[in-house]
């Protein structure tokens, strides 16, 4: 049941993605209404999918890539809805929704039945760990989409196409500020994400840090954002340079979360050795 709902969310996000892009391409304001209907329907089925999954599992759906993926995408859309209504600019959907819809598709591929938690996962620290991940990664996905928007818009301006499309998008200054706000909002939670993971590991495995690939990549992600913050606040980085760091940071997030699981498997050992 949750998988059908998540699939429905996938199609809604796909439609919303197309509609937002069409809005930006055709500059047709009526499309925004349909795009918003699609996003909200997707968000509702995404929410229901999480609720159903929680009911079926008898716990929060935080135990595997599929379950976390549902929550992650949900977080992205929540931030999207907030930013869109707060800044009254609908073009951001054309950048955030592609990210959300591609991720939804990827996570849907990892669909699996509800299974009871293995011993190592039975911990409140895990719950805190995943909840902070939803917040941090959700906001960082938004920062990434907006950074791409910035880079795209500055390319438009370089090509001196100061056309209507260019005017439709928020000013570079606004985007730059939004990216920074999203990252400063996320970084404390990213920190808490690593810390709760470390505390959990201390109780589950007897060691708060073991340099396994997942831990290592989460540290790398964190360092990228630390460098960004220093460059931004102390060295006055702005514009493209700052945006490139925002893009690199989210690439590291995705690699930590998806790449490590697929390419470096078997090393994040949940089970006891026999």
């Amino acid at each position, binding site marked *: 049941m949750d998988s059908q709902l998540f699939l429905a969310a996938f199609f809604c996000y796909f439609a919303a993605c197309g509609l937002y892009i069409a809005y930006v391409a055709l500059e047709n304001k009526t499309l925004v209404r349909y795009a918003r209907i699609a996003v909200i329907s997707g968000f509702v089925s995404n929410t229901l999918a999480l609720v159903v999954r929680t009911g079926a599992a008898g716990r929060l759906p935080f135990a595997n890539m599929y379950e976390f993926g549902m929550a992650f995408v949900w977080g992205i859309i929540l931030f999207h809805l907030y930013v869109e209504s707060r800044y009254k600019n609908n073009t951001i959907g054309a950048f955030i929704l592609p990210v959300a819809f591609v991720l939804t598709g990827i996570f849907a591929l990892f669909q699996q039945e509800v*299974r*009871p*938690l*293995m*011993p*190592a996962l*039975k*911990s409140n620290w895990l719950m805190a760990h995943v909840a902070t991940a939803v917040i941090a990664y959700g906001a960082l996905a938004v920062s990434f989409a907006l950074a791409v928007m910035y880079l795209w818009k500055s390319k438009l301006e370089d090509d001196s196409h100061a056309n209507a499309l260019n005017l439709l998008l928020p000013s570079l200054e606004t985007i730059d500020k939004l990216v920074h706000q999203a990252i*400063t*909002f996320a*970084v*404390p939670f990213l*920190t*808490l994400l690593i*810390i709760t993971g*470390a*505390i*959990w590991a*201390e*109780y*589950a*495995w*007897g*060691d*708060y*840090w073991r*340099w396994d*690939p997942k831990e*290592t990549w989460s*540290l*790398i992600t964190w*360092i*990228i954002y*630390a*460098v960004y*913050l*220093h*460059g931004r*606040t*102390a*060295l*006055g980085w702005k514009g493209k340079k700052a945006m490139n760091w925002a893009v690199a940071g989210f690439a590291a997030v995705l690699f930590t979360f998806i790449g490590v699981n697929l390419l*470096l498997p078997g090393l994040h050992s949940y089970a*006891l*050795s*026999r």
Partner: protein
Amino acid sequence: MSDKPVIPPSGSTSVKQSFDVVWSAMASMRGGMIILGVICVAAIVGIFKPSIYNSLWFQGLEGLLCFNVASCSMKRAKALWQATFPVDYSWVRGADQQAEANSLRLDLKTNQAAVIAYNCLNTMGYKVVSLLTDSGYYIYGEKGKIAPWGTFAVHLSILFIAAGALIGNVFGYNHEISLKVGSSYTVMPQNGQQFEIKLNNFTTEFYEDGSVSDWISDTAVIRDGQEVVSKLIKVNHPLSFNDVSIYQQSYSTSINTEVMDGRGRVIKQQEVIESSGMVISDQAGLAVQAVRYIPDFNPARPMVSQSNEARNPHVLYIIYAGGREIDWGAAPIGKPIKLSDELLVRFTQAVPVSGFQIKYNPGLPIVWLGFFLMTVGFFCSLYIRHKRVWLRITDDNNSSIVKVMAVAGKNQEGYRISNELQIKLSTCHSAVRGG
């Protein structure tokens, strides 16, 4: 001391100079960013070559980072302290040093304007200090003073975490033991009385679908022959006693294996851990391996146990002779099987074994403190804005000129705040006039 003049060898000044350059680079924020970058690269390489993480030069990098953070923090600490706990009111006049200024004229006496400005800043959440001088009023407002302390705490926390890790590495210990049900192990803490842990029972609990829900070691701590603590150790639920933590780590089965001669006399006996083996004769290359313990054996599906109760306990075994596998099968507990022409082997008992990690880490509280500082520091640093505003109120033909100057952290936010203040001031002003 010789009376020869000391002439530095040529080149030494440039060595000293380059040393100074390297030193100050290593102590600067840019240097810190570069070190962080190098650590990132080394960490990635380490994924494929984990020995890097314990190598001296990687630890050197971590040390360099700590040096860097410490020196950056020290440089900032004094200014931070002085800004937070000023000794006099001279900074209130800081208005004169602020470049960005907006000014507005109010049809009020300066003292009235000062009261309004003071109250406005107050209602905006600023802590306000005012100063009357010959040339008019200085009003200073500040909020979010904690933010730069948050930044300081984040940097300090890195040092705490590193110190905790170092202390743990140097003074801590960590080893693994296996305990058979019924047996015990003596822990000898470096600081304190030794004690014994005894494994009373080990069980595996399952969910309805057959997957493992918990490995449970029923354990007691015994000191001076008296049981002082008893605890079910599970994954995520270690036992802590006198700074020593004991973690559930692995499990196995110990199989008591006996070798008998033709007349049934036991000539060799050994506890064999499941999946390992027992060598009977080196020369003949004769050995028996207890591959797996099957508590509820079913000949139709010999590799899997039908249940977890010992209803029909068997041991899957392999026999080697001349170093080669010569026979294999499933032996019921207690029943002898043929090993060679003269020898028999039997598995008499299977007892669960629990694997524990025993750990003493005196650095842990410092690491936890570092984590706490870092979390609180980050929220203070990034969620709270440090804002400072200066107002300068002077008289101009019985009306007041209010100059607004603001600095917010390092951001170019001055104009925004001064605009906000202007709006506030003019609304206050019109309220006064209206009233």
